[in-house]
């Protein structure tokens, strides 16, 4: 297994390992090879490196065309340039056609794009992809999870969207922890005063919040949601069934992401209060930690929201 650190290198490492294993995978890049940390992949497998230039719609179309021949193309770029610039191509030529194309969208969230500023931070992607039938959405929390997610994506026949941040996110999962097929991994199980659900690279903050709350005598369950809008949310519902307060934390717009998904699961199955911590406006340039704290993802703020909502 190739060595890696963070979600981007994990993506490139998994892609390289898949090619080494003899899978007919390709990396389709709209001038994003180095941003995807995939230069070594391109050098090792030049014929599997498909350069499309700064032309995201073209890249998605090219991947669709390749997939009709049995190839397994991975389109790697920034989350928004794929979902926003080439959204219609993802919808009509990959979703509707049910073609076997995989997408890896990075710089997701304000912490994913950090100092680049809003044009390179993407917090709308899940809202869009979740509205596309036939797509699966994977939101690995760290590099180790991303590596497994890419390998699993390659084995699934059909479109998969993988969401990743900057590559500098903290590692939370052990190397060999599987990418949960249930869409949920309980990380802390202190009690059922509240359930805090996390999506992607805010997981370390959610876990820290659970510990802080425990010290205050509030016992919560903290879990990572790694598959959104999956076929079988039974395990997620099981965890939600134990509590009267669910808090969601995600580096995505407050509309259309994890919080929206969980709200719908709640009203459709067992109505329970859902408090969403997410972005309500465009963010700005800055270091990831500062931005995360400002946008309400600090363990202290998560903690305060839970305590306040519980009236404690």
């Amino acid at each position, binding site marked *: 297994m190739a060595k890696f650190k963070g979600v981007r290198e994990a993506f490139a490492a998994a892609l390289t390992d898949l090619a080494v294993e003899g899978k007919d995978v390709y990396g389709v890049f709209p001038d994003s090879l180095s941003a995807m940390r995939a230069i070594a992949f391109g050098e090792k497998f030049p014929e599997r490196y498909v350069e499309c230039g700064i*032309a995201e719609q073209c890249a998605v179309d090219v991947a669709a065309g390749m997939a009709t021949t049995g190839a397994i193309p991975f389109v790697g770029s920034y989350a928004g340039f794929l979902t926003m610039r080439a959204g219609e191509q993802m919808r009509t030529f990959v979703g509707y056609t049910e073609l076997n194309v995989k997408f890896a969208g990075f710089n997701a969230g304000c912490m994913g794009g950090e100092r680049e500023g809003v044009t390179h931070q993407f917090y709308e992607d899940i809202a869009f992809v979740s509205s596309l039938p036939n797509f699966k959405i994977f939101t690995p929390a760290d590099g180790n999870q991303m590596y497994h997610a890419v390998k699993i994506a390659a084995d699934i026949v059909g479109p998969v969207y993988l969401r990743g941040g900057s590559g500098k996110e903290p590692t939370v999962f052990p190397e060999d922890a599987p990418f949960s097929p249930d869409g949920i991994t309980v990380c802390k199980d202190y009690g059922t005063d509240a359930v805090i659900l996390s999506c992607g690279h805010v997981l370390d903050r959610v876990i820290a919040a659970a510990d802080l709350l425990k010290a205050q005598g509030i016992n919560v369950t903290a879990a990572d949601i790694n598959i959104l809008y999956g076929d079988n949310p039974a395990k997620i519902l099981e965890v939600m069934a134990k509590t009267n307060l669910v808090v969601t934390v995600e580096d995505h717009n407050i509309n259309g992401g994890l919080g929206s998904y969980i709200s719908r699961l709640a009203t459709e199955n067992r109505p329970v209060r859902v408090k969403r911590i997410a972005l309500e406006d465009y963010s700005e340039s800055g270091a990831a930690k500062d931005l995360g704290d400002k946008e309400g993802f600090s363990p202290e703020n998560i903690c305060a929201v839970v305590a306040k909502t519980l009236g404690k």
Partner: protein
Amino acid sequence: METAALQKVARRVRFEAVRMIYEGKEGHPGPALSCADIVATLYFDVMNIRPDQPDWEDRDRFILSKGHGCPIWYATLNERGYNNPKVEHFHLRELGSIFQGHPSMHSGVPGIDMTTGSLGNGIAIGAGMAYAAKAHHKDYYTYVICGDGEMQEGVTWEGVNMAKGRGLDNLVVFVDNNGFQSYKTIEFTIGQNNMADRFRAFGWHTQEINGHDVEQIKAAVTIAKATSGSPHAIICRTVKGKGLSYMENNNKWHKGVPTEEQWEITKRELGGE
């Protein structure tokens, strides 16, 4: 196939295309008729295909980028033997019919290599197929028919750039240059109608022909196949609604259904042998 026989096929698929629109009561006859000779020549002379084995992996690929012209594609596939038994009534655009308003590769029509309908994407998708052919060491060709209106979509030029950059000489693109788009003429909309200059400027091997002359279509493909190193554009001067006196160069037939009276004219002008 002999020229006379090809012309006969083109006439028959024209009639069938208009018939399915007449029976289905909706569709785009003008854009279908302008590319009839190209589609017929590709399926009956040029392409290496097996109608009884539509998924044969070494087949030449075809994309109708101007998906709204699909009645001509449906009629040609039917005529070529892709549907077994042959389809009598297409039920175009009706609920439950395999013949969708814009072609779908999953609706059940044998021989549809790619879903289309959203304009501008055919060249980039064709480039993907052509790239995969090279990567898999296959020698099939990918043929694309584009409308001239969809040259206004930026993604067209992204695909043009990509195919040139990767040297995809196994990609052949026909531009059905009938001079009209949905609303008005190409010149009205963007001022110029110089498709060939643009493809040349982007580095493509470019030819200009009469898109209703099957001999010229055949010859252009032969020349394209003999030229390596860059993708091929064949700019076809065509007439929107070609073959029906009441439709030719009348853009009201971009979308429309013949009246009973016009259907009688259609039968006279295109029916029979």
